[in-house]
């Protein structure tokens, strides 16, 4: 296989890793929605903590994106 083709395939496969954070953020959102449903007055602190946790989960997806960007745009001749 041509090395450029392998590079591009690798970039595509690297983004499969974004499934995990997607599911994780969904679980976080579900927990936050249930908490707000139980106690609508605590909406402020719940939303703040949810955003903080989502940033942690999203960072992993960003790592996959960095690998994909490096493979597709930088590495290789």
């Amino acid at each position, binding site marked *: 296989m041509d090395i450029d083709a392998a590079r591009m395939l690798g970039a595509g496969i690297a983004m499969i890793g974004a499934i995990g954070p997607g599911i994780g953020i969904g679980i976080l959102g579900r927990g936050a929605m249930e908490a707000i449903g139980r106690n609508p007055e605590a909406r402020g602190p719940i939303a703040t903590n949810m*955003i903080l946790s989502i940033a942690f989960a999203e960072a992993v997806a960003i*790592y996959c*994106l*960095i690998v994909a960007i490096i493979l597709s*745009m930088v590495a290789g001749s």
Partner: protein
Amino acid sequence: MRAGDILKAIVGIVAVLGAVIVGLLYFPVPKPHVELGAEQVCQIAGFPITNTLIASWITIVVLLAIFILGTRRMKMMPTGLQNVVEWIYESLYNFAEEAAGKENTPKFFPLFATIFLYVIGAAFISLIPGFDTIGDGAREHFTGAFAGSYTGWVVHEPLLRKASSDINFPLALALIAFASWTYWAIRMIGVRKYSRQFIKLENLGEGFKLMSRGDFKSAPMAFFMGGVDIFVGFLEFLSRCIQIVSLTFRLFGNMLAGAILLLIILYLIPWIGGVPFYGLEALFGFVQALIFAGLTLVFSVIATTAEHE
């Protein structure tokens, strides 16, 4: 659905489609040239000056101008720029107080607020229209993605680039934050208590004491727990060091991905495609600044909290 609603929906859809077609035909965008590393503009005494460095200097100058002009001749009843500056300061201080508690906040607040304002300033300044087109280029004839061609200014060596899309920007901030919270921890709770967060030798000590008393039944259990404690302490230390990497890549990845996304969407759907993604970029700039500064604050609090207190 009444007839009025259906009419409004149809008018809306036709307007959006029309805007897309107008954009494709009359406002084409030249193909974006995306690069991971920042491009060097010039050299000062052998030190390379990249376009992101120039953008970060502009951010610093703008932030200094806003805050110095806002705090000159301060009045008891603030008006105008002083009002805005006080609002920014107070919102950040309230947020920091919630996360860090009343006594710790005066110590941790300057770093937290500076990181937040620097990151959000760098992100928002790069969103000013025309920011990416300042540079060395020429009037050229270019064709857009699907249709339409135009003769206009195409920049080939941009002089300015989004400051946080260079990996050195978040890396420097993360290293400063790490040095700061380690320094505060050693100042506030002493070297022994701080290193006891990672090196937990109590169970090993228990094991030796039990052995010296001749109790050979429960000694191996204590040694095993001691070994587990050492391993856990090492992992804790490693995770503290990984915070630097994770902070860096979170900010860098979000900002770079946002910049690339905006460039490519504006190439594919000119003139109107940029509107929702521009708003997304502004939101992400704010959220990532808050996350970076907030995590710095939280890790400072964790590092300076002695255990078993």
